[in-house]
C-alpha cells in the first residue's frame, strides 16, 4: 500500500520541505485545528484564572495599604522567574499536565493585571469620589458603579497585555506537551519541518492579534462614554 502511494507523492512541497506548502495545510488541518483549540483554551483559562485572583488582590491592596507593597512585590517577583522554570517548579505541586501550564500562565498575568487595576482605581478623580459620597453611595456601590467603570480603560489595557503575552508564553507549555501550537512548533523544529514551523508561528501571531482586537471591541462596548470624547 505504502509502496504504491510513495512514488506518486514523492515529489511535492512536503518532501521538498518548503516553507509554504498547500499540501501541509490540507493534510494536517486536523492537527492544526486541535492545537489552535488547545492554545485558545489554555490562554482563556489562564487569563480568567489570573483575573479571578487579581481582583481580590487588587481590592485588598487598595483597602489595606500595608498589603500593597507585599502584593505588588510578590507578583513582580513571580514575573522575573523564567517561564520554563516556573512551569518546572510547579510540576511537583500540580503534576505533568495542563493544570501546570494554566496555573503558571495565570501567575504571570497577575503582575500586569494587579498593577493596572491599582493604577486605574488610583486614577479616579477625588472630586468624582466625593460627589458619589455626597449622593449617598456606600463603599461597595461606589466601587462597582463609579470607580470600576472609570478605571475600566486601564484594567482593559492590562487585560490586553496579559492576553497577548499569554498567547506567546503558552508555546513554552510544549515542555509538558500542553503548549497548543507550541507542540507543533517544537516538533517541527526538531524534525526540520519548515512548513509546520512557519504555519504555527504565523497562527500564533494571528491569534494574539485576533484576541487583542476582540478585547478592544469589548472595551468599546463596555465604555460607550469614551468614544465621543477621545479615541484611545
Amino acid at each position, binding site marked *: 500500500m505504502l509502496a504504491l502511494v510513495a512514488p506518486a507523492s514523492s515529489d511535492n512541497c512536503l518532501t521538498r520541505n518548503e*516553507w509554504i506548502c498547500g499540501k501541509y495545510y490540507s493534510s494536517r488541518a486536523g492537527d492544526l485545528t486541535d492545537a489552535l483549540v488547545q492554545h485558545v483554551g489554555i490562554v482563556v483559562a489562564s487569563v480568567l484564572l489570573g483575573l479571578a485572583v487579581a481582583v481580590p488582590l487588587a481590592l485588598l491592596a487598595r483597602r489595606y495599604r500595608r498589603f500593597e507593597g507585599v502584593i505588588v512585590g510578590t507578583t513582580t*517577583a513571580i514575573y*522575573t*522567574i*523564567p*517561564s*520554563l*522554570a*516556573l512551569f*518546572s*517548579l510547579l*510540576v*511537583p505541586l500540580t503534576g505533568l499536565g495542563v493544570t501546570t501550564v494554566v496555573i503558571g500562565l495565570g501567575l504571570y498575568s497577575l503582575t500586569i493585571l494587579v498593577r493596572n487595576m491599582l493604577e486605574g482605581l488610583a486614577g479616579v478623580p477625588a472630586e468624582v469620589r466625593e460627589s458619589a459620597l455626597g449622593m449617598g453611595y456606600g463603599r461597595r456601590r461606589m466601587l462597582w458603579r463609579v470607580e470600576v467603570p472609570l478605571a475600566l480603560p486601564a484594567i482593559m489595557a492590562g487585560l490586553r*497585555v496579559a492576553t*497577548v*503575552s499569554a*498567547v*506567546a508564553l503558552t*508555546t*513554552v507549555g*510544549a*515542555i*509538558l506537551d500542553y503548549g497548543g501550537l*507550541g507542540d507543533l*512548533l*517544537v516538533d*517541527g*523544529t*526538531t524534525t*526540520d519541518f*519548515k512548513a509546520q*514551523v*512557519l504555519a*504555527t*508561528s504565523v497562527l*500564533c*501571531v494571528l491569534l*494574539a*492579534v485576533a484576541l*487583542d482586537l476582540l478585547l478592544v471591541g469589548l472595551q468599546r462596548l463596555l465604555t460607550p462614554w469614551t468614544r465621543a470624547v477621545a479615541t484611545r
Partner: protein
Amino acid sequence: MIRDVIAWFGDADHWQGASGVPTLLGQHALLTVVSMLMATVVGLPAALWLGHRRRGGTLAVNLTNIGRAIPILALVSLLALGVFGTGAFGPFGRSGLATLVTLAVFALPPIVINAYTGMTDVDQDVVEAARGMGMSELDLLRRVELPLALPLVVTGLRLAFVQVWATATIAALVAGPGLGRIIVHGYESFQTAEVVAGSLIVAVIALLLELGFIVVQKMIDPLPSGSR
C-alpha cells in the same frame, strides 16, 4: 522531593564536563551578555537620539506591545530552520546564532522604550536653559539629558537583562545551548528533581541579577530619592 533536589546538587557528575553546570552556566551567561550587547549597541543610540529630538513616540509604544506578542519559541525556530541553521556557533553551542539573534530582538523593546521615555521626560525648562547657555546639541544630550534620563535608561537595561537571562532557557527547547538544557534533559528522562534543580539555578540567579541592578540603580541616580 527536596531531598532528591539536594542530592542532585551534591552529585559531582553534575558539576563537570560538557553538560555540567559550570559549562552550561558559562554558555548561558555568554548568551545573555552578548545578545544584550547586540541589542544595546543597536537600540540605545537610536532611542536616545529619537528621545532627544522628541520624535517617534508611537513607534516606542507599539514596540512594547509587539515585544509582548513575539512568541520567542517561534522566532528561534524560524531563525534556526531558516537563516542561521542549527549548527554550532563558536562557544554558543547548537543553534547558537539563532538563539543570540532571537534574544537580542527580545531585549530591544524594554531598552528602547525606557531610554526613549527617560529622554522625553527630561524637564523642557532644563533643556531650554542649557540651550540658552549655548550648549551644542551633542553636549546637551551627553551632559544634561542623558544624566537625567539615566535612571530610566538603566531600568530598561535591567528589565532587558533579566528577561533575556530568563528567556535564554527556552532555547534548549529547540536544542539550543544554556542552562535550559538541564531542565529539558530532566523532562526527557522524567527526573523531576533535575528539572527543579535546573529551574532553581536559573530563577535564583534571575532574582539576584534583579536585586544587583536595583542596588546599582540607587548608586547612579543623580537626584537623591524624594527630590523628584
